[in-house]
């Protein structure tokens, strides 16, 4: 990876004590040159301790659980205040492959886009998920295409990188919960350019998806509403 740019990997973590250390080490092994920031979102387990024990990442502890959006935004605030050129978001559950970091970052460092999403569906990568989840992702893709005319194969992906401009925007404006799709529509609305690049995705090793069956309906409704309103709202 080009080392003349300061790159920060933001890892939001809520009760991920079983995977956080492995994820931090994996990122370090693949890219020792990047800085890492674990944002511990008020975990009740040893997430913070285990992340600190690696000695490879900066750890910020939020005193309360503010939700994934608030946690990720903390990372963007940190990145923009400390002069990073590129910020990458990566999930703490080990589903994202640190080896793909380069692909996502190079889209940004080459100036091809302001934001690059690691997509599981751009190429056949062998990633499969439940039919309901796939249907949900397809629905959001359709919604984004209907509202913005842009095609995004994997708008719910939490593996993404932004340049300084988009990072500063996110530091000021970021959705609170289930933020992935809404954040993209916000960027799009503000005229930022977004690209996708194919990535591999592992099946979940530890912990559970934050989206349980009961929350699925809330998730779909909340995100759809947010996406619709963002389309017509005066964004920040």
């Amino acid at each position, binding site marked *: 990876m080009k080392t003349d740019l300061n790159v920060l990997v933001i890892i939001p973590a809520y009760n991920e004590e079983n995977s956080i250390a492995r994820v931090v080490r994996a990122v370090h092994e693949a890219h020792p040159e990047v800085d890492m920031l674990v944002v511990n979102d008020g975990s009740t387990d040893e997430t913070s301790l285990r992340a600190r024990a690696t000695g490879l990442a*900066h750890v*910020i*502890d939020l005193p309360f659980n*503010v939700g994934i959006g*608030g946690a990720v935004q903390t990372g963007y605030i*940190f990145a923009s205040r400390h*002069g990073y050129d590129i910020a990458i978001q990566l999930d703490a559950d080990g589903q994202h492959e640190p080896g793909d970091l380069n692909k996502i970052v190079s889209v940004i460092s080459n100036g091809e886009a302001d934001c690059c999403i690691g997509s599981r569906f751009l190429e056949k990568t062998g990633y499969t998920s439940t039919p309901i989840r796939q249907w949900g992702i397809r629905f959001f893709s359709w919604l984004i295409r209907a509202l913005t005319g842009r095609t995004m194969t994997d708008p719910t992906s939490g593996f993404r990188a932004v340049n300084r401009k988009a990072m500063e925007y996110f530091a000021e404006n970021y959705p609170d919960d289930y933020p992935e799709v809404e954040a993209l529509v916000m960027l799009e609305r503000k005229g930022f350019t977004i690209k996708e690049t194919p990535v591999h995705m592992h099946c979940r090793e530890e912990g559970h998806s934050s989206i349980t069956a009961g929350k699925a309906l809330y998730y779909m409704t909340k995100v759809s509403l947010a996406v619709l309103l963002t389309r017509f709202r005066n964004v920040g």
Partner: protein
Amino acid sequence: MSMHIHVLSTICSAALTISVVELIRRQRIAEKYSLLWLVMGAVMIVCSAYPRVLEDAARLLEIYEATSVLIIIGFVMAMVMILHLTIVISRLQRQQTRLIQELALLKASLEKEEDPDDRYAHRIG
């Protein structure tokens, strides 16, 4: 409406309004959040003290029972109040999130000051 209920409701409405004023005086509620309550109290006093207002409104809206008008007014005001509170809570939640973030960032930068050997020390002012 009978005379008794008329007097009683006037007293109740006045008591509510006085309570709100007293709460503002003791700074238990901020003035800006009390405006709705004061308006509500004033409307209730007027409706109780001059039932003619309700009766006229009922005739105008072709509502048979004047008390129904009172219930509708009460319901609408309660909804406005709840909506107002939701707006306030949303703002408070946004501010709280930002405070939590700033606190955590500040704590992290203090930690790094205490441990200057840290790899990331150079990044923190």
